[in-house]
């Protein structure tokens, strides 16, 4: 379950090997959401790899040794940096890669390398460490507003419990109906759960990880793990796919040991609770629902069936699928912190999801990620096609 943290300042052997393994075939372009909306092969996955190979050749290769690191063309580095930060890191390219390159990890590693070289991050991403240092979240919002505006009064939070809920910054500040749904579902299950106080529930580290800024990660993880440990937590549940991804994949390495609790996505909790009768829908819906798989949940940690089990557990629901779903899902545009800089791309990608959902005559588009929720809602502002957007737990809470 654990992966060692890559050493700072330098790509790992596996990453170097993957860079060389790219055959430059270009098959991934048909699956890249950024290509879908920009049509610009110059920022495509193989182009990024080709550029980075040139960067390496200019700094480490014979040319670099003969002429020094300055031989690495500044323009090339800047072009590469823009391309690697324009990516949503959704990993669809890796899924379609004939060589099986793990791009959902490779792109963040290359971003880390650009940060090391002083070229990344770009735009407002550079302010993330200071925002998190000063407020505990990347949105520069006060801790007092973390839970209060959305947490349901009817739901009781225990001081100590084996089950804990981590709301996450994006849900708490940008997608409140979603985290409210989480809390309502947890409350309805009757299983006691605890939460950290708002000033202690700091960022999980994902925004820093994904933008290549790794300096504060260990501190954040140590703080959070200590908080949950002190509350006797054995299972930590979260609904944000990015948080769940870094918790499951990287927290053990950042913590330096196996975590004292297991990580679960809330859809796993809800599917189990529906199956065991702890949650019972009180009414049906009679609607056509289309479910969007978040990239870091499906390709990232393999959660594909449980959200569908939750939807099928609601009487009367007809479940529709996007053409690209499950492990092949198409990014809605919110991924990889690219939305903070390349806003128009993100909106255009979000609209592709809306277009398909509308074309399939879905009554609602069901999302399962706070970043998707915020961005696809934003994509519909001023758009001629409209669909009702609901978070998975928000929907489940509706029928309980």
């Amino acid at each position, binding site marked *: *379950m*654990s*992966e*060692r943290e*890559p*050493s700072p300042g*330098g*790509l*790992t*052997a*596996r*990453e*170097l*090997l*993957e860079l*060389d*393994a*790219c*055959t*430059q*075939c*270009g*098959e991934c*372009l*048909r*699956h890249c959401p950024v290509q879908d909306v920009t*049509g610009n*092969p110059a920022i*495509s996955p*193989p*182009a990024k790899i*080709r550029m980075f190979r040139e960067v390496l050749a200019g700094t*480490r*290769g*014979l040319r670099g040794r003969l002429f020094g690191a300055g031989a690495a063309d500044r323009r090339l580095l800047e072009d590469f940096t823009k391309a690697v930060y324009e990516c949503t890191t959704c990993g669809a390219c890796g899924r*379609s*890669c*004939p*060589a*099986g*390159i*793990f791009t959902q990890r490779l792109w963040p590693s290359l971003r880390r390398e650009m940060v090391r070289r002083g070229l990344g991050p770009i735009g407002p991403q550079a302010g993330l460490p200071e925002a998190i240092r000063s407020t505990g979240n990347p949105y520069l919002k006060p801790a007092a507003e973390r839970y209060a505006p959305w947490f349901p009064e009817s739901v009781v939070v225990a001081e100590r419990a084996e089950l804990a809920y981590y709301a996450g910054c994006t849900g708490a500040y940008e997608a409140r109906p979603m985290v409210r749904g989480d809390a309502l579902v947890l409350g309805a299950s009757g299983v006691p759960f605890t939460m950290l106080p708002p000033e202690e529930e700091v960022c999980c580290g994902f925004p820093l990880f994904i933008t290549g800024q790794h300096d504060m990660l260990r501190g954040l993880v140590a703080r959070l793990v200590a908080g949950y440990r002190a509350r006797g937590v054995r299972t930590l549940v979260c609904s944000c796919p990015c948080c*769940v991804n870094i918790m*499951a*994949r990287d927290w053990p*390495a950042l913590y330096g040991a196996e975590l004292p609790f*297991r*990580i*679960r*996505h809330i859809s*796993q909790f809800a599917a189990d609770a529906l199956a065991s009768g702890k949650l019972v829908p009180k009414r049906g819906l009679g609607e056509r629902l289309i479910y969007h798989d978040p990239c870091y949940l499906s390709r990232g*940690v*393999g*959660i594909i069936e449980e959200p569908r089990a939750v939807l099928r557990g609601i009487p009367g629901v007809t479940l529709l699928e996007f053409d690209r779903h499950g492990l092949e899902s198409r990014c809605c545009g919110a991924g990889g912190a690219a939305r903070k800089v390349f806003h128009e791309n993100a909106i255009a990608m979000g609209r592709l999801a809306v277009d398909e959902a509308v074309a399939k005559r879905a009554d609602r588009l069901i999302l399962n990620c706070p970043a998707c929720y915020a961005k696809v809602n934003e994509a519909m502002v001023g758009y001629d096609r409209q669909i009702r957007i609901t978070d998975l737990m928000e929907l489940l809470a509706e029928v309980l």
Partner: protein
Amino acid sequence: VGALLLLAGYAAYAAFLGRAGALALALARAPADPGGTAGRAPSPARAYAAALLDILLLLRLLRTNAPLWALEWVFHLCVALEAARHLRYLLEPVPAWAAALQAPGLAAGYLLPAALLAILAAKWRRRGSGYYSSENVLLLALLLLGAGTGIALKHLAPTDLVAAKSFMLGFFAFRPGAAPASPLFAAHLLLAFLVLARLPAHVATAPFAILDANRRDAALRGILHE
């Protein structure tokens, strides 16, 4: 001509070995790889078996683009058979299995350019809308020319095979001999050396990436499921 061919050949091998050595050095000096695959790692035997199938059958490409997969599979098979067929010019005595592969190797020699042309056409057609690697197209063009000169050597201007073999054995033993007096042979050999010098690193590294991908795919479900 013989001396030029020898120089080109040794330069090509030096370039090939230099690149391979630089890659090995870079990998050896790189920070340690992550200690394991997130999730439950599959048994090594199962991972290697799955990866072997994946590599031999190009299964990942099949999943993505079935028509291109068919062309690439024919192309790779033809290259392997051609390489095996050519061993008779490089080994003495010729192993029985290499002798047995002469007929399929010959057939592969005719099929190879057809597959290459189809792959090039597919890439050319996508030039405006997809990623276009001039490096790849150049390599394919070199292979196509190599295949063309090979067929020409067989049917249009056969060279003295004994002299060709003697030259190649001398080349590998660092005992240079006279090259056959055939411009077509020289062109064919030069093209082979050029391909060797430009051989993409993915020939060596992609199988390891595919092995890793198989481990990762098998372990994915275990990340959040017990």
